[in-house]
Every structure is written in structure tokens, then in C-alpha cells.
């Protein structure tokens, strides 16, 4: 089993919120990606079994959202760099290029040591703090190359 009992229980605890099992697909995918760092194909089959769906139904939803990863686990830090207009107008694209060079990876890739996954974000909704970066669950606003370097240095 790819999903242990803790994960299964976390998913089952969401059942009372919805009148259908299928509505738990997105929350379940979030639980799995958060705990495992990715959603391996075997997990899709197990989620489907739990939700009384065909694996294709889960995979269909999953594949729509570029958010869930299936090829390998995410890095320990998932770094989203906003490139939408407000950030781009204040240097967001330069920050992204700087981070690519600093980490040696392109958007969508993970560093070989598993420290970081770099992503481009379509508007983080932090336009008043542009340019903005989201690192896991923490927003960092008014970024500069120096601040980004400090963030990268602090990665575990």
C-alpha cells in the first residue's frame, strides 16, 4: 500500500463534508501530495478504491490541475515565482531568471539534491507586494535578488 492508515484516515475524515465520494477527489489529492510530496500512480488507484471510483476518473481530474506531481517527489521547498503583470512590471521575470541560474534548474524542475522545486505562478494574488514568491506555505513579498538569495541559502 502506498497510502498508510494515517493518510487514509485523513481522507476518510473529509467524507461527511460532501454528499458524494467523488467530491473528495481534490481534497484527497491534496492530502496525498502534502504528505508524500507527490501523487504516484499507485496512489491514484488507492484513492479511487477508497472513493469508489475508477482510477481513470481520479487521474482525469488530477491531470487537469498542473499542481499535482506524478513523475517524482517535489523538492522540500516548492518555490512559486509570480510572473503575472503586476510582478513582471516590478522585476518578477528577472527574479525568475536569477533563481533558475542560482538553482541550476528550469521552472517545473527539482534540484538533484531535492532541496527545491521551482515553479512559475500565474498571479499569486499578492500584487501589492510585487514581486512576490510563495515558498511552501509562506508568502514573501517585495522580493529582491538579495532577499531571494537569502531564502535559497536558508533552504534545508
Amino acid at each position, binding site marked *: 500500500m502506498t497510502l498508510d492508515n494515517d493518510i487514509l484516515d485523513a481522507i476518510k475524515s473529509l467524507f461527511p463534508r460532501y454528499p458524494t465520494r467523488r467530491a473528495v477527489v481534490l481534497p484527497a489529492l491534496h492530502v496525498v501530495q502534502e504528505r508524500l510530496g507527490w501523487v504516484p500512480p499507485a496512489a491514484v488507484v488507492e484513492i479511487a478504491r477508497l472513493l469508489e471510483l475508477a482510477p481513470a476518473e481520479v487521474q482525469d481530474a488530477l491531470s*487537469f490541475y498542473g499542481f499535482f506531481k506524478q513523475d517524482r517527489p517535489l523538492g522540500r521547498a516548492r518555490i512559486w515565482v509570480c510572473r*503575472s503583470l503586476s510582478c513582471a512590471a516590478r522585476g518578477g521575470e528577472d527574479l525568475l531568471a536569477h533563481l533558475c541560474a542560482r538553482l541550476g534548474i528550469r*521552472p517545473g524542475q527539482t534540484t538533484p539534491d531535492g532541496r527545491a522545486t521551482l515553479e512559475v505562478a500565474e498571479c499569486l494574488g499578492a500584487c501589492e507586494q510585487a514581486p512576490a514568491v510563495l515558498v511552501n506555505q509562506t508568502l514573501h513579498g517585495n522580493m529582491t535578488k538579495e532577499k531571494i538569495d537569502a531564502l535559497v541559502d536558508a533552504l534545508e
Partner: protein
Amino acid sequence: MPDFEPVLTANLAKPDGHRLAVYEAGGGYRALRRALAELAPKDVLEQVRTSGLRGRGGAGFPTGLKWSFLPADHPGPIYLCVNADESEPGTFVNRVLIEGDPHQVIEGTILSAYATRASTAYVYLRYEYPLALARLEAALAECRAAGYLGRNILGSAFSLDIFVHRGAAAYVCGEETGLIESIEGKRAWPRIKPPFPAVEGLFRRPTVVNNVETLACVTHIIDRGPAWFRSIGVPPDPTNPRDPGSFGPKMYGASGHVNRPGWFEAPLGAACRELIDRFAGGVWKGRRAKAVVPGGLSTGLLAESELDTPMDFAGPVRAGCLGLGTGCMIVLDETYPILEFLYNSCRFFAHESCGQCTPCREGTQWALELCQRIRAGRGRLVDLDLLAEIGDSIGIMPGTTICGLADGAAWPIKNALGKFRDELEEHIRTTNPSGFGQTEPVEAMEFAGREPRMNADERG
């Protein structure tokens, strides 16, 4: 701008403004207590209808009218969805409201559920807002403990629970039927309408979808009355029988090339230039503005000469934009190339098109490729005509797509070409002099061996 008492943002500056005790000390849940004790659901609906409240999510549809489309004697369940998938580039005030004053939004949600007889509400919150998620979950827990949520709220016959449903970074989930599909556990493909959600929505039940700020407004309408709400803003245009007016306070935002990016509250109808100068410190570096996006990327562009446009639901439309949108302005200074605006916009919509409708899927992609070609110094004058053709032929308005995403993609193109064509022509003339005079046939886009449609950086 007339004297004005901010209400939507009143709690945001208070220490611990997100906590129940602070909210209650400022009069919070007073409206809910009174409504449950004194008003029938139809009375609440009637107050919202007469207030003239229009949806703050972008389209400006009258909220009371939307609610009145629910079937009158439906046995239930009826669902209320709170649209907190604020993904329109430039827009952030829903995040500020949820982070800083979640109870205001929750009170409005409970009141709206009471008015619509909804028994369950789902807050569709975009993934990118982790602090808002934490604040909202904490506030909901406070409400359950205090008896504002759950069975028999405040001793009344009304029961409701609110659950947060977290998105997964897809813009189209902000379209109300895309949002519904996403909650149901499917890909967020917008539905063909009719049936509209009020008749057949979430789990095939009658459903209302309202924006976060709209629901916050409901709290104050019930607390202070519809006459108070109508005393703020812009009355209907007497020469236009289809204009319901723009009433109430609005939470505006300003970002981009301004001295003090941020949010602020003002009456609907304040002039764009006044808002930028008074609340955002004016254009940065002593420069002039070249253009302002009035309310999120899809609304298009106001040129500098149009900045006295009133920021109500009708103003930006008169200036040739899609509409007021979210009222979150993006200021571009006189040095910023319109081509970069156009490229950024086309890239966004090409990335976010869900792919269901061919005009949108293909149109947004080709518009991006045309921008790429012009940026690469290989632009031709005819490329501008091709872009204009795409802008005029995709979307609900020409009747070629299911949802409004393509409209949103089209307006930035239309406005950039309509208002700044000279600048774009000049760019092509200077970067590709031989191509400038070239019209047909189209070369350099042969199908065999062409570049990938989006490079890795753009795909993300």
C-alpha cells in the same frame, strides 16, 4: 470623492482583527442576530435586492436578482459557494479581506445562506492563499464553538455549516460552473448554460455562487439597511434603462508602477486617477502613467487620457474596456512597452485556457505566438491585423465559447491594438524594417519543423 466612512476595511487595521472577540466588539454578528430573530429569509433577500448590490467578482450581476432565480419551493438541499478563487492577475483584495477580517465574510455567508435557504456552503479558496486558509479555518472553528454555525444557529430553526475546499492553481475555477465541477471532483471545465447554477448547480442542486467581497457587503446591508447602501455610489444612468446603478462601497487595489501599492476603500464611482493619486501615492519615479488596467488583466486598458473615468460598473465600459472587473488597478508607467503588457496577457490566458472550446484554446495560443514573433524581432504589420482578428472572434460575445475566459483574453488584445496600435507598429518598424511592409503570404510559421508551441519556461 465625497466624505465616506469605510466599512469593509474597518477591522483590517485593528490588532487581532481576524479574531471573533475583536469582530464582535466592533458590532460583529449583530446583523445575523437581528436577521435570525426578526427577518424571514425572503426579507433578507428583499433587502439585498433593494440595496442594488452587484457582484464584486467582476461581472457585476445584481446579487438579489441572482438569488431570486432559485426555485421557490425546492425541498433542498440548496448550496452556496463562496468564490474565493481570486486568480485574476492584479487582484488581491479578497485575500486581504479573508486574512484580515474573515468573520465579516463568514457573517455575510451565513446571512446569504439564510436568505437563499442554503444548508451547506463551500468556500472555494485558491491554493496560493495559505494564510487566508489558516485564518478562515480558525474563524470557522470559533464560529462553531460560539453557535454561529452548526445546528439551530443562535437558537433559531436555521442550520448551516461552511467547509473550505482548496483549489489547485487553475484560473478557470473562478468561473462559477468551473468552480462547481471542481468541487464535484472533476476537471474544472465550465458547463454549457442553461441550466444555470440557480436551477441545477452543485451536485445537480440549486446553487448560488457569490464572491467574497459581495458577501462582506451583505453583512453591512443587513446591519445598516439598503437605504444606507444606496446612499453611496452612482445612481442608474437615466438614459440607459438597463443600467441598475453602482451602489455601495468598494475595496479597490493598486499595483504596478505606483509609489504605494496597496488596497483601499472608496465609494463606487471614484475616478481612476484620483484613486491612484490619493491612495497609492501616484505613479512612481515622477513619471506619468501610460495605461492602467482598471480591474484585473481581462478588463483591458485605460489610456492615460482616459484616467478620469469613474471606477463604477459603467465607467470602464464607456472607455472601451470589458468592465470594472475587480477594481484592482495595475498601473503601467510611460516607459513600459505595451508589447510587454500584451505578451504577458496572452501568455497568461494561453496557459489558463481549459481547452474545451477551440476558439479559446487555439486563439489564445496563436495570440501568444504572434506576440513571441513580434518580440523576437520578426514581427510584420499583418501580425497586428491577425491579433485584432483573434481579439474580435473569440469569446462569449461573438458566441464561440462556453465561458467568459476567452472574452477576458480578447479585451487586452482589443484595447492594446485599439489604443496603442501606433506604438506596436513603431516597434515592428524598428525591429524588422523589411517585414514592416510585408503583408501576405504568411511565412515563418510553416507547420513542419516549427518551434514547440510553448517553451518550457512559458508552460511552467
